[in-house]
């Protein structure tokens, strides 16, 4: 399953890129991420509670940051496993300046397996899009020029 899109955030590119590779901020941006623990260079172990509305599942995940070319490109790879099945997502993010804002182009590939794959067909694409949207919304909250960096998120 593919997800792709473009997101504009009112913040300088450097600031956004720095946030994207900062585990503390990533933890706030990855929807449902409750804990992130460094296991290696740009490698983290995470606990996630992901889902939509009341349909949620607990996942243990690995998060890795790859192909880092500051401040324009990197790849975020998340692989989670839990009782509802597994999720594997990788997204490539390309950043460029758009006036005072920064434009982030993203293309991602999401694979799900197990229960969620077999029963969630009709909502899965929308869920993936929604989680991506949440990620960027949180990122915006964390980085936008006029918002405090210590946003509490949701």
């Amino acid at each position: 399953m593919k997800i792709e899109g473009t997101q504009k955030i009112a913040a300088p590119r450097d600031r956004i890129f720095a946030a994207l590779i900062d585990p503390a901020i990533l933890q706030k941006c990855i929807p449902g991420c409750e804990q992130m623990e460094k296991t290696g260079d740009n490698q983290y172990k995470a606990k996630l509670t992901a889902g939509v509305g009341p349909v949620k599942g607990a996942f243990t995940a690995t998060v890795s940051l790859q192909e880092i070319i500051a401040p324009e490109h990197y790849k975020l790879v998340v692989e989670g496993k839990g009782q509802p099945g597994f999720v594997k997502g990788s997204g490539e993010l390309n950043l460029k300046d758009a006036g005072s804002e920064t434009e982030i182009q993203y293309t991602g590939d999401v694979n799900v397996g197990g229960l969620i794959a077999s029963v969630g067909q009709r909502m899965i694409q929308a869920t993936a899009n929604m989680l991506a949207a949440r990620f960027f919304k949180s990122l915006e909250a964390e980085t936008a020029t006029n918002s405090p960096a210590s946003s509490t998120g949701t």
Partner: protein
Amino acid sequence: MIPASFDYIAAKSLDEAISLLAKHKDDAKVLAGGHSLLPAMKLRLMQPKVLIDLGRIRDLSYIKEDGGLIRIGAMTTHFQVEISDLLRRSCPLLPETASHLGDMQVRNKGTIGGSLAHSDPAADWPASILALDAELVATSAKGDRVIKATDFFVEMLTTSLQPGEILREIRIPSGKSKPAQAYVKVRHPASGFAVVGVAVNLSIDGGKCQSAAIGITGVSPKAYRASKVESALKGNALDAKTLSAACAHAAAAVDVNSDLYASAEYRKQLATVYTRRAIEIAAGRAK
């Protein structure tokens, strides 16, 4: 298809249900028919520790009209809506919507409040509730809170109901004598949910559309008002040209769903075509 273990409590009154919910908080789910909740539990997609059943609270099931409002209790079944003389007379959109909903078993047991609170992106009710400018009454230990339909649906499977709140009543402004309403739907061949569901509530006077309210479900992660279509209709005669121009906006400004049955492109086409058809049917009924 065996749920994780849970406690079941049949609340005897709304007050009891509210206090149970306050006590168990996130561990609890409210059971209001169960046609979405129970399958999700059987699949273990949801594993609430406590189920608070509203099924025994008789005074949550009613359809009445007073003070210029139609009031529908949250535990009113789809079937009761479908056969209500009051609604057939004054708000036929609701019985028509009910008649498209699920199957006979679902309509006999499922409730309008349960469905709305679950907020499935392809459920039928949200379209009609939006088109009718309904208000939803949530209640909690703090008392009642009235939520506009347009504020109620937040995103897929998520409403603006707050922790501790229970949807108690749906209120609809009493309609005119001959409402120009219609609900049309493309059923998913497997689930019966709306691939596209369009609810139309028009006011037509002197051959012109005075107001239009159009709710669309199934197309996007949450049901929405097709406001661009509405504004394109307002003040105009509903001729073919107007309709076709207006309905091209049926899925404007929303993320369009895609699944195995219908791609986003096709869903958009269905939304366009069925919005037009729903308006035509509604307009025909006003004559």
